[in-house]
């Protein structure tokens, strides 16, 4: 058995401070996997390693058995891995539709043909537009296609970001705190969407999240890291009863 995404002994340090210390984890094909840990545990650094915004000092990351630490950030999507960002990272001055279309960038074909609007590119463009509209509909964004994303409410921006990631037709998505800052209603909506993305589209998901109830209900499997190192992993029920995890979250003396 080989995992969809697998990282092995990933070590990153910033000037003397070790952010990730020999972290290993597996994300199995078709599953929703959670990555949790107290603040400063190294989750964001690890996410940046996975999406190639951060170089490793040691260790390797394998995407379907292919080592990726030698690739550039923009090459990751070619291997079918998309990501979202912690505090929403949208193209604010552009419309919802354009944001989704940018997500579909890798399906664009030859950039020179595209720039000159040659017939082949026009066909691709029309197809991408249709798909973007469908995607927007399935994430309940159909009424916002022509609006600038900076004018949208927060929960909707989160969905636009997800739609942008999906537009690349990935088979694995990294979600960095998908419900952070959302109210209850938005959270449950996003939860349902994440479930659907996983089940209907068959996309593997790795997510970092602080909202424990959300992690416990959505994830099939959970990795816990603390102080930049692996602490525990298991099913949500395993993790909920794990002594080390409880200590890590509540402090040793509880």
């Amino acid at each position, binding site marked *: 058995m080989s995992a969809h995404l697998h990282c092995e002994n990933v070590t990153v340090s910033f000037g003397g401070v070790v952010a990730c210390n020999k972290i290993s984890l597996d994300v199995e094909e078709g599953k929703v996997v959670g990555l949790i840990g107290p603040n400063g545990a190294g989750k964001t650094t690890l996410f940046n390693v996975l999406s190639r915004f951060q170089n490793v000092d040691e260790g390797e990351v394998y995407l379907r058995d292919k080592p990726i630490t030698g690739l*550039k950030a923009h090459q990751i*999507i070619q291997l079918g891995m998309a990501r979202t*960002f912690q505090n929403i990272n*949208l*193209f604010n001055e*552009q419309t919802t539709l354009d944001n989704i279309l*940018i997500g579909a960038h890798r399906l664009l074909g030859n950039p020179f043909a595209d720039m000159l*609007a040659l017939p082949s*590119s026009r066909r691709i463009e029309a197809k991408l537009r249709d798909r973007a509209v469908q995607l927007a509909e399935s994430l309940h964004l159909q*009424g916002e296609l022509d609006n600038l994303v900076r004018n949208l409410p927060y929960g909707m921006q989160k969905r636009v970001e997800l739609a942008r990631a999906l537009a690349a037709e990935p088979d694995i998505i990294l979600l960095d705190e998908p419900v952070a800052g959302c109210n209850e209603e938005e959270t449950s909506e996003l939860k349902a969407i994440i479930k659907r993305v996983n089940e209907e589209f068959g996309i593997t998901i790795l997510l970092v999240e602080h909202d424990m109830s959300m992690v416990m209900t959505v994830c099939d499997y959970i990795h816990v890291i603390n102080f930049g190192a692996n602490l525990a992993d298991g099913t949500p029920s395993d993790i909920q009863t794990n002594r080390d995890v409880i200590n890590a979250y509540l402090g040793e003396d509880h």
Partner: protein
Amino acid sequence: MAEQNTIQTRTDKLKQKFGRQNWLAAGVLFLAALAFPIFPGVEGWMASQASLIILYIIAAQGVSVLTGYTGLVTVGHGGFLAIGAYTSALLTKYFAVDLLVGIIAGGLMAAFIGFLLGLIFLRLSGAFMAIGTLGFAFFIGTVANNVPIFQGREGISLPPNRILGLEIEDLGFYYVSLFTIGLITLFIYGIVRSGVGRAFMALRDSERAAESAGINRVFYRTLAFSISAFITGVAGVLNAHIVNYVSAEVYADIWYSVDFLVATVVGGSAVLMGPFIGGIFVVMVPFFFETLADFAYILKGVVLIAVLLMAPAGIADLLARPFRALRRRQLEQAETGSTNEAKP
């Protein structure tokens, strides 16, 4: 569901109508520009002045591709103007090429140098790039001044312009300029609406998100740099042939570079009409204050700062606002209007 569809078709129709209106307006403007020389009260010298405005607009369009759409500042596009001008001047002088060949060759040479420069500069963040491009403009000026083939301040005089074998005067040159700007405007319009244009703007708005969507930063920025240099290089060719003369006296200072940046910012750098308004502004202010050249400088500075304070997206954006608001209202009416009908 059916209701949803009628709304959809209704708004789609409205959008198509807006699109037709835009094309109609552009067409009317172009026809007016075509007919401009036969308007009553138009004198011969105006054709030449109009060509000058057009070439400034083209140069500013080049800057806007880089600064407005891709988010990279340049204070060195006077350098590309000079490259275009000298390329065509030398070709005309030594090989007596057609103006059409000169325009294409001048643009391509500027694009090539822009590509090389891009490879060096694109790893830099904004402020460093501003300084680097400024240094580039100075470098080109010094080269023009000192390398013998460019004949320094003495300059190179060119024979009368010939295009497609036909010898042309001021009026003919005006039409050449007009068709050039028409093509370049269509080119930019196409880019902005294409996936490539979206990639430029994505890099401008968020580098990280763009890269994670698979946009190759170095490739697209180098491409933007080359396209931008090409367009300004073409303006340079026109600048050489409008007076049949090139000289280091003209190209050695940084006024062209800063003027193009001002034109882009004042007009609106990420709006198709921005460089038009900015270009007219930058050429016509000194023209109206011919005897008060220094006052023209002051006015340019004051207007620039006023635009930054009050309409940071540029004058073109300011002018377009009421139209956009009107259209948005119409769209909203189209959406709510049909739901109201469906309800009772």
